């Protein structure tokens, strides 16, 4: 996929024609209520706070971030499973955020979701046949009993389950098979957009690859468009064409998958990439590692200015604390929201160690009482804890 879906890149717009899904300034705020008799709203959790993105037809958009960054809420808001506070979700020319009642219900036929927990999202009292025919009957598709039976059989084939599975119940399947049922249910209505929220994270390693391959195969065969939400960066990179990185409710970087992973520009993306362990001891020992100080700040009271400045190793005295960075385009389709992205890329600015960040921001990252690890022969060959290039 060479087309780069990006709202403000004219070059990409001409190639990508009109994107299947465009999200503009989407906000989802959850009120924090206090009080027993009278509900008072004492504040808002800004789960999603102004996200713009667009997904081209037939491509896969990967959304990554740590837990609590709002990526799942974003996915659910696109489907109107949670009500957006503000913003537009334009799906194939229609604003989903303003739809009500029947038009919304019919629109949902074209956008489906695969959930993280396959056992929790399938009714334990329905067998597979009933699970798969339910969406068809709800939307009056499939053409009668015989037609539905026919459709279900092709669905099972498509996701690689035996037809003997029809009479069985969700608990009789393994995790991977359950996820296949969830996928079959999602593609039953021949949707255009499939939102997969952590589709493989509940599965064993050896089974994850089966499901990832299945998703890719279905995309090729059915021309599906995916929005994949996951915290596993390696999986997202594997299946996505474009990847967006979220931090505290907003997008901090978006780029074509290869570009993002080879040259992450935002300090948070860099730290995220460097934190992923690689199953290869040789790489592990030479890998540059950026340790972040402290934890994710509360989304109810996000830091001023750049939201990442409390943990950022590249934080500068000016701008970072008080000026909110906007997504800027550096290179084709590569959007970054960092005031100092160019300087960091060119190596003009040097990162500070996590301890220094911790000292200025009042958070800590590593044991202060531990002795110098280099003094022990056992670590020879093991990389230093915080090593900057």
């Amino acid at each position, binding site marked *: 996929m060479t087309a780069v879906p990006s709202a403000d890149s004219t070059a990409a717009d001409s190639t990508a024609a009109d994107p299947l899904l465009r999200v503009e300034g989407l906000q989802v705020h959850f009120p924090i209520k206090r009080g027993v008799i009278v509900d008072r709203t004492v504040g808002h959790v800004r789960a999603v706070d102004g996200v713009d993105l667009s997904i081209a037809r037939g491509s896969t958009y990967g959304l990554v971030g740590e837990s609590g960054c709002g990526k799942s809420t974003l996915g659910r808001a696109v489907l109107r499973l949670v009500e957006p506070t503000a913003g537009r979700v334009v799906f194939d020319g229609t604003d989903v955020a303003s739809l009500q009642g029947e038009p919304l219900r019919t629109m949902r036929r074209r956008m489906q979701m695969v959930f993280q927990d396959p056992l929790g999202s399938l009714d334990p009292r329905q067998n597979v046949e009933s699970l798969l025919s339910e969406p068809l009957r709800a939307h009056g598709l499939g053409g009668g009993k015989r037609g539905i039976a026919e459709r279900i059989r092709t669905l099972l084939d498509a996701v690689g389950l035996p037809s003997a599975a029809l009479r069985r119940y969700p608990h009789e399947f393994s995790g991977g098979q359950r996820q296949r049922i969830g996928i079959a249910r999602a593609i039953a209505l021949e949707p255009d957009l499939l939102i997969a929220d952590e589709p493989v994270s509940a599965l064993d390693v050896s089974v994850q690859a089966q499901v990832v*391959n299945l998703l890719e195969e279905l995309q090729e065969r059915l021309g599906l468009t995916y929005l994949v939400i996951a915290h596993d960066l390696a999986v997202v990179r594997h299946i996505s064409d474009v990847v967006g990185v979220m931090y505290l409710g907003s997008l901090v970087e978006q780029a074509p998958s290869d570009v993002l992973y080879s040259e992450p520009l935002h300090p948070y993306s860099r730290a995220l990439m460097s934190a*992923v*362990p690689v199953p290869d001891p040789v790489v592990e020992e030479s890998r540059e590692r950026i340790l972040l100080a402290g934890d994710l700040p509360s989304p109810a009271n996000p830091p001023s200015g750049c939201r990442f400045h409390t943990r950022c190793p590249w934080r500068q005295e000016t701008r970072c604390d008080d000026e909110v960075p906007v997504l800027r385009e550096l290179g084709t389709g590569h959007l970054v929201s960092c005031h100092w992205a160019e300087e960091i890329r060119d190596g003009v600015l040097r990162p500070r160690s996590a301890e220094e960040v911790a000292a200025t921001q009042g958070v800590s990252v590593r*044991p202060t009482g*531990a002795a110098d690890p280099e003094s022990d022969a056992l670590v020879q060959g093991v990389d230093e804890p915080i090593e900057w290039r």
Partner: protein
Amino acid sequence: MTIESLPAGEAGTVGASVLDVEELTVTFTRRGEQPTRAVDGVSFSVGPGETVGLVGESGCGKSVTSLAVMGLLPSRGVQVGGSVRLDGRELLGAGDRALRRLRGADMAMVFQDPLSSLNPTVPIGTQVTEVLLEHRDMSRKEAGDEATRLLDRVGIPDPSRRLKEYPHQLSGGMRQRALIAMALACAPRLLIADEPTTALDVTIQAQILELLRELVVDSGTALVMITHDLGVVAGLCDRVHVMYSGRIIESADRHELFAQPRHPYTGGLLASVPRLDAARGAPLHPIRGSARDAIPWAEGCAFAPRCDNAQDDCLTEVAGSTVPLEYDGPGRELRCRHPLQHPRSPAGATASGAAR
């Protein structure tokens, strides 16, 4: 089985091993049902300052192994066999009182889910000082000071305030740090970490792994790392044991294991995870089926139904005996009759040739 001879050779370089597990078996029995053998003849040892990884998918017996070592399995319906020695002292069959004295003092454990392993109704400080009062004969005041020092050591900011807080007030990473602080309170000789980072985000995972790495180096604690994440193993463990269906199927030093996986299961695991540093678009090669498809070891190799290399003699009826864990080159052991072949592996080739 040659496992006894192997760690002895290794232990010679770092002194006597801290933990010796020999032929550990755990069987769960339930009335009216076939007994389930969750762990079957597992042997390994850990030296001081050494990190040993137990790797496998859910249901392979890695957590049961760790619970058996700690003596935390319930006595009802569970039979534990074999031998577990901590500094030469036999733990299996030791009385509850003796085990209580050891747990927390000489051996400690970090669990996967920090929220459910901390008491939600008791402040962090009380939970940390409890260990110190129990095992180190400290006064309350001394224990409080020591707890502050411990939390500071594991990187919890503002420790004296945090000691008064309850578990739900801490973030996931901080809870895990608090658990590690409790585990380290008495400078244990052995630390078992059961999926310590699985519930955490990658950036927090990196912090916790760094912390564990420094602690091992700093205090010479023997660390048993139980995980399903091959990336974690590659960065942390000196020696890796891959488990499948209750048995160790391959043991090797991490460099050799990742460079030349010999068991088809190990190779399959490595081929099925996408890597951040590999070229994109390379297809993944999953292992067929799921861990449920395992057959009992008594009927041959448990992995045979999912194995691409499987041949007729992988089943007992043909070969006449179960597949043994055998010597496979220096420092390696393998339980497979048809291992993966690598271009340059002279020792492995002869070993597998002899096995055929």
